[in-house]
């Protein structure tokens, strides 16, 4: 029955409900429990084996039915960037440090959720009414910023917040016609993709799905997940920035990374990985033959879980595939629903074509 499945290029209501749950869940690196619980609920009925490893990765194994199956690792990371409370000041405000890569200039004025209880707070900022001329051009350092939670005293703040608690952007999922707006699209879009693949798995492979932790702080979960899984090859599904808006001076935009609406971004090379050329060819061929929109991500910087996976043990042929999103690592990312659906379609069609001969060298 599963072999009859073919993913739809249009989103269903249940797709959007799942994306809403996943993006509104809070899972800053190191504390991925909320997303893990959703993933577990979604995939457990389908898994032949399921385990949570020492770091918190959720690892799912599902056996295929065809003879001579490759062991294919798919990875998507459950964590998101955020902040961590590092001190409570005598005036009851909270100091913090970034967890993962955040443009701190984006922080002032943003509402946040603190800790498991989602205590509401705001990153304080001076009102523009009271700006001195110098304030407009000066970059505010993170050490000058504070989170306010409306506590009247240091003691009250200490009762409500503990040092080391994590902070997430307080953003609700919004469906805006052909796009969605949410925090943590990086990489809940990948997580949603993998959930769907586990549920409707192609019979041609043995599926090793890794929902990883701590990607945003250095691909840590993926490293140990790959060591345990020992796959024949790996495909990482992530979310990559689209910087495709016009330039301020009207010059040609030559560093857009990806463009919204042009389909999943296939990686030739980023800073940490050179995509396996055989898998690169297969992804492009599959997209062309199936008529699935796709684009090549501009080679250059960045990195995905593939950076750790491809160096595991004797090496793992690996490639990454990303859904493009504008305003990554901010409270409000923008992604095209069609790009996400095309990502699921391309991944599924590619998995169906994976045979051991793909790894033969001439």
């Amino acid at each position, binding site marked *: 029955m599963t072999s009859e499945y073919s993913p739809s290029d249009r989103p269903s209501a249940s797709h959007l409900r799942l994306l809403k749950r996943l993006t509104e869940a809070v899972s800053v690196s190191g504390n991925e429990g909320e997303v893990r619980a959703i993933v577990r609920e979604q995939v457990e009925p389908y898994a032949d084996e399921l385990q949570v490893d020492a770091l918190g990765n959720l690892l799912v194994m599902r056996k295929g039915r065809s003879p001579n199956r490759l062991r294919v690792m798919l990875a998507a990371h459950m964590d998101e960037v955020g902040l961590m409370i590092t001190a409570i000041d005598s005036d009851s405000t909270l100091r913090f440090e970034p967890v993962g890569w955040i443009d701190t200039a984006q922080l002032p004025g943003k509402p946040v959720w603190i800790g498991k209880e989602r205590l509401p707070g705001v990153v304080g900022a001076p009102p523009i009414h009271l700006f001195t001329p110098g304030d407009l051009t000066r970059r505010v350092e993170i050490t000058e910023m504070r989170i306010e939670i409306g506590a009247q005293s240091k003691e009250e703040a200490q009762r409500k917040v503990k040092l080391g608690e994590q902070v997430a952007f307080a953003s609700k999922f919004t469906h805006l016609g052909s796009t969605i707006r949410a925090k943590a699209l990086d990489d809940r879009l990948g997580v949603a993709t993998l959930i769907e693949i586990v549920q409707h798995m192609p019979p041609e492979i043995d599926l090793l799905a890794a929902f990883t932790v701590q990607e945003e702080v250095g691909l840590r979960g993926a490293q140990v997940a790959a060591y345990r899984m020992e796959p024949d090859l790996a495909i990482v599904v992530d979310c990559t920035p689209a910087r495709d808006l016009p330039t301020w001076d009207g010059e*040609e935009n*030559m*560093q857009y990374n990806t463009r919204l609406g042009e389909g999943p971004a296939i990686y*030739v*090379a980023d800073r940490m990985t*050179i*995509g396996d*050329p055989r898998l*690169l060819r297969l992804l492009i061929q599959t997209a062309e033959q199936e008529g699935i929109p796709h684009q*090549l991500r*501009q*080679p*250059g*910087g960045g990195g995905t879980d593939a950076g750790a996976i*491809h*160096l595991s*043990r*004797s*090496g*793992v*042929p690996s490639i990454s595939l990303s859904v493009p999103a504008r305003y990554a690592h901010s409270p409000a990312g923008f992604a095209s629903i069609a790009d996400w659906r095309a990502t699921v379609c391309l991944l599924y069609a590619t998995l169906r074509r994976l045979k051991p001969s793909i*790894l033969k*060298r001439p």
Partner: protein
Amino acid sequence: MKSLIRKLVEAYGPPGREDAIRDIVADEIRENVQSIEISPMGSLHAFVNKGGKRRVMLAAHMDEIGIIISHIDQRGFARFQPVGNVDLETLRGQGVRFPGDIVGVFGVDLERSREKPPRIGDFFIDFGADGKQSCPVDIGDFGVFDRPFLDLGRRLVAKSLGGRIGVAILMEVIRQLPETPHELQFAFTVQEEVGRRGGTTSAYMLDPEIGIAVEVTATGDTSSKRKLAVVLGKGPAIKVWDSRMLSDPYLIRHMAIVANETGIAYQMDVLQSGDTDIPCIQLTRAGVSWGCISIPARYRHTPSEMVDYRDVEEAVRLLLEIIKRPMDFGEEDKDQVKQSRVS
């Protein structure tokens, strides 16, 4: 050996696209080795005397620095990103080659670079195309320096010598292979220039006890200010340390003793630089006794790397002498350590 070096350095092999080099190596060495395997990453492993006394890995990397196309602009110029440690200063006026005999030249947007040194975004590749449609390359294509091999007699000049001279040396060792008590694991590795990715995965796969890399090292003989003792023409250099690694002192001493006994001139290589964030083969699995024979080279990571041919020949001779002999170095000291632990 010079014709082999020419063939290797003129071939195309940026990181992740080493197929042409691997084919050259496999064709040349196949007859002289017991078996050949290709790692999942694409490194070529050749085995001699499997099951021998010590598992000795001898490694050189096949790849070279290059560029990768990131955008074709409206005028038909190709924009690019570096692959490996590319010095932008070396690009102006330089040719760049792609598979299928496609060649272009690097240009710089002069308007932008008049004030400050040009940045990567100011550079482009001009293929003589009329516009975007006639540009012969596409996003994701890898290019390498277009530079023929120069034989200056004692000195050799080429692109890609940084890895390929090691490849040539190991191939020559295989051609002249002596009787050896050891299992020799020749590893021609991939993706060194982007962070030693093929070397570490090969080391895991081969699980050697002892390893020797053959690479190039910087010299101090072109500047009175650079305090580097290594010079061209005074023999291969035994690496003591760089920023990544302290070589196994027992292996250093062993290589020096062999050189002294056989009258091979050598230098000591103390390189106070190098990337520190890239993995080190020494730390593979439970650890490997690791060392390096460095070929002194000027103008590294440029299209005109220069080595001295005598250093190359002597490195071959030194390696042949090393693999002939037992490698029980350090055993006495290690026994002492064991005993002291017991008592």
